[in-house]
């Protein structure tokens, strides 16, 4: 029990519930870890030391009064800084929201508190979740704990780095085009993008509403399932949340793999894929084959249109969602203003960073008069074709297995000068957001430089439970090392 920071979330919850561990000790151990590791890794924008200790003491006192504790008893959770926690600064890693204190809790924040989790801090991200490397944070760059010279991925780089460096056993993140799965892949974690609508987004600062989904990051499938069980379910406050959303996920391996059909979409193994990534992904697939799974070559013919479709739809929705940042009610306001128009233009021009402005303009252009049909409307139709590809392929197979990203974690600065190169790092994760199905990344090996490689597994919508079970099966075989 000495090494608290290496315990799984499930174990912590069990020990705190039974009284073998105090929530306060658990939180204290993680705060100490943050003090030694975070100056190097820089995962957190805000560390909630006092709040977390107070919450932990309250949990301990609840238990000593004989009350039954929740599913996440005493488990520290790091929360991406685009999710509201009442009274706590929520910045989206943007200058425009610096100092903004959330006036209420997101639904998932309330759920965490109800399950006796302890929110330990708010994690760094690419500004407004727009990016794939964390280099777009307006404040600082989070580093990959596996190699501090490489990016942690993005946009949920802080949430990934916090869990990989054992500063928290669990984190919450959001995924619009791969923002959970790609950093999970780069940091050797399990990262789940649940089915669209499975988790309430009330209190998530919106980026692209038809694509955004909240999900867990963890060091094991069981822990990811535990967190997902705590946050999933329909929420009347989110009109896009699904009435059929489940909230019970065991994260236990499949009892029987025999006869299971796994599709290998050939478009995901095309040119440009890092050979070590290819090999590692195939090793995991071959293992499932030895267990009796049937592996099938399949095709998703519209895959090559996914990135273009995404880079029309996501910026268009972002342009609308981010119109609310106008310098009037919250956030940054420019000084020495002479007109209303100038108030908007200068506050936004000075408050938003380069990538956010780029996407707002791209979206504004795609939606503007004369271009709407050529861009936005056409992209929505392409989206239908991409979603149909998945529908068709899931008539033939139960799951798809692919690489999560075309490469391992890249170096700082390697892609930041070229937006198009950066956009392509989400090439394998974007299609699942467009189609709304369930997908996750699970570590499947290390490359020769000791950097993690991620396997992406994709299931039809609302098959999250089976997807986690398949991931747990792979996890047993891979025996992925923990980072020291």
């Amino acid at each position, binding site marked *: 029990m000495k090494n608290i920071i290496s315990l799984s979330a499930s174990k912590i919850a069990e020990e705190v519930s039974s009284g073998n561990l105090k929530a306060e000790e658990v939180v204290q151990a993680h705060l100490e870890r943050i003090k030694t590791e975070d100056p190097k890794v820089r995962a957190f924008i805000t560390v909630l030391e006092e709040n977390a200790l107070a919450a932990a003491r309250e949990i301990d006192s609840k238990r000593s009064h004989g009350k039954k504790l929740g599913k996440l008893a005493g488990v520290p959770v790091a929360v991406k800084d685009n999710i509201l926690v009442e009274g706590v600064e929520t910045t989206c890693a943007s200058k425009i929201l610096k100092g903004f*204190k959330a006036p209420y809790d997101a639904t998932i924040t309330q759920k965490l508190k109800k399950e006796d989790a302890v929110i330990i801090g708010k994690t760094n991200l690419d500004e407004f979740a727009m990016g794939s490397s964390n280099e777009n944070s307006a404040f600082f760059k989070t580093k990959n704990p596996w190699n501090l010279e490489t990016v942690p991925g993005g946009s949920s780089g802080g949430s990934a780095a916090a869990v990989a460096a054992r500063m928290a056993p669990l984190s919450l993140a959001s995924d619009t085009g791969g923002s959970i799965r790609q950093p999970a892949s780069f940091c050797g974690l399990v990262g789940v993008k649940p089915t669209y609508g499975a988790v309430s987004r009330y209190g998530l600062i919106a980026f692209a509403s*038809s694509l955004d989904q909240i999900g867990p990051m963890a060091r094991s499938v069981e822990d990811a399932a535990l967190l997902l069980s705590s946050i999933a379910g329909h929420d009347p406050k989110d009109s896009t949340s699904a009435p059929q959303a489940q909230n019970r996920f065991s994260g236990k391996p499949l009892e029987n793999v025999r006869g299971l059909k796994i599709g290998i979409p050939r478009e995901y193994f095309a040119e440009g894929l890092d050979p070590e990534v290819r090999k590692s992904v195939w090793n995991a697939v071959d293992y499932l084959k030895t267990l009796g799974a049937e592996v099938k070559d399949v095709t998703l013919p519209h895959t*090559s249109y996914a990135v273009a479709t995404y880079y029309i739809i996501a910026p268009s929705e972002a342009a609308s969602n981010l119109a609310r940042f106008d310098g009037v*009610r919250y956030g*940054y306001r420019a000084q020495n203003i002479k007109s*209303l128009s100038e108030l908007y233009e*200068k506050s936004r021009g000075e408050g938003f960073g380069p990538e956010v402005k780029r996407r707002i*303009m791209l979206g504004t*252009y795609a939606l503007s008069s004369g271009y709407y049909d050529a861009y936005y409307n056409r992209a929505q139709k392409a989206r239908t074709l991409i979603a149909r590809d998945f529908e068709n392929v899931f008539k033939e197979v139960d799951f798809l297995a692919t690489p999560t990203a075309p490469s391992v974690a890249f170096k700082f600065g390697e892609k930041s000068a070229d937006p198009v190169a950066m956009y392509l790092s989400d090439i394998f994760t974007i299609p699942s957001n467009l189609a709304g199905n369930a997908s996750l990344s699970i570590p499947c090996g290390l490359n020769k430089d000791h950097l993690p490689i991620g396997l992406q597994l994709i299931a039809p919508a609302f098959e999250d439970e089976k997807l986690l079970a398949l991931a747990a099966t792979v996890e047993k075989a891979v025996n992925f090392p923990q980072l020291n």
Partner: protein
Amino acid sequence: MEKASSITEEDVRKIASLAKLSLSPDEISRYQSQFVKILDSIAELSRLNVENVPPTSSVLGLKNAFREDQAIPFEKNQALIDNAPEKDGPFFKVPKIIE
């Protein structure tokens, strides 16, 4: 789809104005060249045959999500006002815009 390379700095200025973003001359020239590249990279969509394909806006196929129109008291007004860059009592303060 129009040929993307025809995007000029003047176009970028117009888009920025529609998006209510003030940009420096440097930013305008940088965005102009990046836009050409980005729009070229998404131009492949124009080659896709989308005839008779309906657009997808919701993958869940949800239509209107109705609920009872009930007023729920919100008691954290002060927390909202406290976030304002400028305030006056219970009001958001903005620069004078009408002479």
